[in-house]
C-alpha cells in the first residue's frame, strides 16, 4: 500500500453555504457526524480522517461511511491497528499543518494511546509556549447501553477531563453532533470528542449545516424551578425522561445539557442552580472520582450558600462495567433520579 493515491478524485466538495440551508430532514447523530466530517473534509484540504476501519467499511458505527470513496485514500484511510500509533502519527501530522480527525474504535481501546494523549497531545502547546499547536480531534464512541461485551462500554471522560490541555465535549443530539464536531475540527486545541454510542441512531429533524451554541457552553434543555439536573451525552435523554416523570409528580426539573465537560460552563450552571437551589448530576461512569465529583465540588464551592441540599450524584456503581445481561442494573435510570431527589429533605 502506498499512501499517495494519484487516482483519488481531485474534486473539491463545497460544503453547503450557510445562507442556503438544506431543507430540514430527519437525521441521526451518526448521520450528523458523518455530514460534519464530509463538510469539514470538503472545506479544508488539511483535514484528514484515519484510524481503524474508517476507510471502505466506514467505521464499525458507520460514522465515516462513504468518505473514503468520496475523498480518496489520501484524505480518509485505514491505518494499521495501533492506537498509540494513530495518536502519535496524528501529532506529527498536526505539527506539519494537517488537522487530523482520528477515531478510537471503542472507549477502552483508546487506553493504549494514553501516554501519547496525556504526555504529548495535551501538553504540546504548553511545552512550546504556544509555538506548536495540535489541532487534532479524537473521536471516541463511549459509554454503554448497547449490550456490548466487556471493554466496549467504558465511560472514560474523567481521565481526559482531569488532563490539562485537553478540551472534552460530548453532544447529545444530532444538531449538536454536527455543529460541535465542525467546531472541534476548527479548534486549534486538541479535542476529545466523546460520542454517546447508545444514542448514535437517535433522530431529530434538522437542516444541515446547523450552528448550535458554541461547544464550550452548557444549554438549558428544559426549564424548571425545583432542581437543576445536569446531564451529558448518553444521560441527557434519561434526564429529560426524569423531568417528565417529575412533572407528573409535581416536581419542576430544569435539565441542563453540559455539552462541554472541559471547560465546565460555570456561568450557565451557576445561574440555574441559583434559581433552583438544588442540583444533581448524572453520568454512566463509576461514581468514585467520576466527572460528577468535579461538578458537585465546584457547584458546591461556588453556590454553597444558595444550596438547600447537597449536590446529588446519580451515576454508575463503583464496579467494572457489567456484561450485557446485567448492564440495565448499572445504568442510571429516570427512576433512580427521582428516587435520589426523594432522599433530599424538601
Amino acid at each position, binding site marked *: *500500500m502506498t499512501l499517495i493515491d494519484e487516482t483519488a478524485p481531485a474534486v473539491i466538495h463545497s460544503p453547503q453555504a450557510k445562507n442556503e440551508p438544506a431543507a430540514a430532514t430527519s437525521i441521526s447523530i451518526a448521520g450528523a457526524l458523518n455530514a460534519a466530517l464530509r463538510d469539514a473534509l470538503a472545506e479544508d484540504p488539511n483535514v484528514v480522517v484515519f484510524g*481503524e*476501519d474508517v*476507510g*471502505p*467499511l*466506514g467505521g*464499525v458505527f458507520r460514522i465515516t461511511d462513504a468518505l473514503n470513496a468520496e475523498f480518496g485514500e489520501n484524505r480518509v*484511510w*485505514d*491505518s*494499521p*491497528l*495501533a*492506537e*498509540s*500509533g494513530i495518536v502519535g502519527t496524528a501529532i506529527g501530522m498536526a505539527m506539519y499543518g494537517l488537522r487530523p480527525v482520528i477515531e478510537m474504535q471503542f472507549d*477502552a*481501546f483508546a*487506553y*493504549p494511546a494514553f501516554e501519547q494523549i496525556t504526555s504529548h497531545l495535551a501538553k504540546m502547546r504548553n511545552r512550546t509556549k504556544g509555538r506548536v499547536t495540535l489541532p487534532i480531534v479524537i473521536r471516541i464512541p463511549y459509554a454503554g447501553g448497547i*449490550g*456490548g*461485551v*466487556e*471493554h*466496549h462500554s467504558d465511560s472514560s471522560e474523567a481521565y481526559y477531563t482531569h488532563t490539562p490541555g485537553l478540551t472534552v465535549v460530548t453532544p447529545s443530539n444530532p444538531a449538536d453532533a454536527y455543529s460541535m464536531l465542525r467546531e472541534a475540527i476548527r479548534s486549534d486545541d486538541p479535542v476529545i470528542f466523546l460520542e454517546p454510542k447508545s444514542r448514535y441512531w437517535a433522530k431529530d429533524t434538522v437542516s444541515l449545516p446547523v450552528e448550535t451554541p458554541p461547544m464550550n457552553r452548557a444549554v438549558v434543555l428544559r426549564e424548571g424551578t425545583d432542581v437543576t439536573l445536569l446531564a451529558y451525552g448518553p444521560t441527557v435523554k434519561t434526564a429529560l425522561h426524569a423531568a417528565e416523570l417529575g412533572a407528573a409528580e409535581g416536581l419542576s426539573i430544569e435539565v441542563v445539557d453540559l455539552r462541554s465537560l472541559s471547560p465546565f460552563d460555570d456561568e450557565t450552571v451557576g445561574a440555574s442552580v441559583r434559581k433552583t437551589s438544588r442540583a444533581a448530576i448524572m453520568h454512566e461512569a463509576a461514581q*468514585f472520582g467520576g466527572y460528577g465529583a468535579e461538578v458537585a465540588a465546584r457547584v458546591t464551592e461556588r453556590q454553597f450558600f444558595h444550596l438547600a441540599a447537597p449536590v446529588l450524584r446519580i451515576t454508575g*456503581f*463503583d*464496579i*467494572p462495567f*457489567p*456484561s*450485557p*445481561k*446485567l448492564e440495565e*442494573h*448499572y445504568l442510571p435510570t429516570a427512576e*433512580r433520579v427521582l*428516587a435520589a431527589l426523594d432522599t433530599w429533605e424538601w
Partner: protein
Amino acid sequence: MARSFGRLGPSVATLPRTIARALAVPEHCFMSDDVVVPPLPTTKPIRLIAETGRAVKGAQTAGFAMPSVETLLGLYRQMVLARRFDAQVTALTRQGRLATYPSALGQEACEIAAVASLAPNDWLFPTYRDTIALLTRGVSPVEILSFFRGDWHTGFDPHAHHISPQSTPLATQALHAVGLATAAKLKHDDVVALTFLGDGSTSEGDAHEAFNFASVWQSPTVFVIQNNQYAISVPFSKQSHARTLADRAIGYGMPGYFVDGNDVAAMYAVITAAVERARSGGGPTMIEGLTYRMEAHTNSDDPTRYREKGEVAEWQGRDPVDRLEKYLTAAGALTDDVRGSIAADAEVLAAATRGAMNETPVLDPLELFDHVYSAERPALLEQRAFLAHELAQTEQTLTEMAGRA
C-alpha cells in the same frame, strides 16, 4: 536447568553461533551467549498436505515430518466438531440468543493444531476469536458461551482449564502468556504458554513487547499468529509491509515459521516442535499460520463492504477440513463409518449447545458487587444495598401488579 535443548524441525535447525563479529566490539555488546540465529522464514508457507489432499515432499515441508494417521484422524474429528459447534453458535447468534459471536470458520486447522500441541499443564491464552480452541480443550459450551450471551465476562474457571479469559483488548494477552511462562520457568515447572494473536493485533505495541520480553527472558512461550488476512475490514496489506509476519522473529533472535494455516498437519508439526522446544528450555517461537476468515468479523459486520465474494470463494477451495478429509480418505483411515460417527458426535454437540443456549440463565445482579475486591468495602456495600432495595421494590411492584391483574 539441566534440560536438553529441544528440536525444532530438522531442516530449520538453529544455527550455531558462527556469525562474524565486529573486530574490537566486545561480544556482549550485541549478542548474548545463547542467542540462536535461525534462518529467515521461507516466504512459501511450510506445508505437509497439498490442497489436493496429497502429501507434500521436498523443500516446502522444511523437513517437518507428517504426523501419524491416528493423530491426523484425531485432529480431523476435533475440526469437524469445532466446525459444527461454530456453525451452531453462528446460527444461535443470528437468532438473537447471543450478544455477539466472532466465528473461526476456516481457521480450524490453526485453532485445533495449537490446542492439540499442548499438555494439560500448559496454558492457553486465547482471543475472542478462539472459542473453538476452548471447546477443544474441554470447556463446556455453556461455560464458553456465557461470555457471548452476555451473562458474565468469563464463564469458566481459568485455573481449572489452564485457559485465560478470552481477551478482547488486542495483543494484551500475549504479555500475560509471557509472564505466566516466565513464572513457571522460575518455579522450575514444566509449563508452556501458548498465545494466539491475529494479524491485525501484531501491529499493537503490546505484541512487540511480548515478543521481546519472551526472547530476552527465554520464556517458554509459543506465539501462534493466525493471519486470516483481515482485521475487521482492514486487509493485511494495510497492516504490514513485511514479506511475512514470521520475518519479525529474526529481530527478536527467535525462530520464526511461516506456515500454511489451512494445513493442520503442518500447523501441528510446527507448533508441536515449538512447544517441545519451549518445554526443554529452548525459549520462545513465533509461528504465522496463513489462513482466511470465511465469515464476517462478527455477526454485526458486513464484509461485502470491503471484500469481493470471489476472494471468499477462492479460499473456500482451500478449506482445511476438506483437505484433511481427502488425505485421510486416500490413506484409508476415513471410512464412511468413521465419518458418520464423527458427524453424529457433531450433531450431539450441536444439540447440546442449542439446548444449553435455549435455557435462560439465572443471574443475580447483586453478584455485580461481589468480585471487585477481595475484601469488602463499606461504600460498595452501600451501593449493593441500594440495588438490593431497588430490586426488592421492583419485585414488590410486580407482585402487586400480578395481584391486581
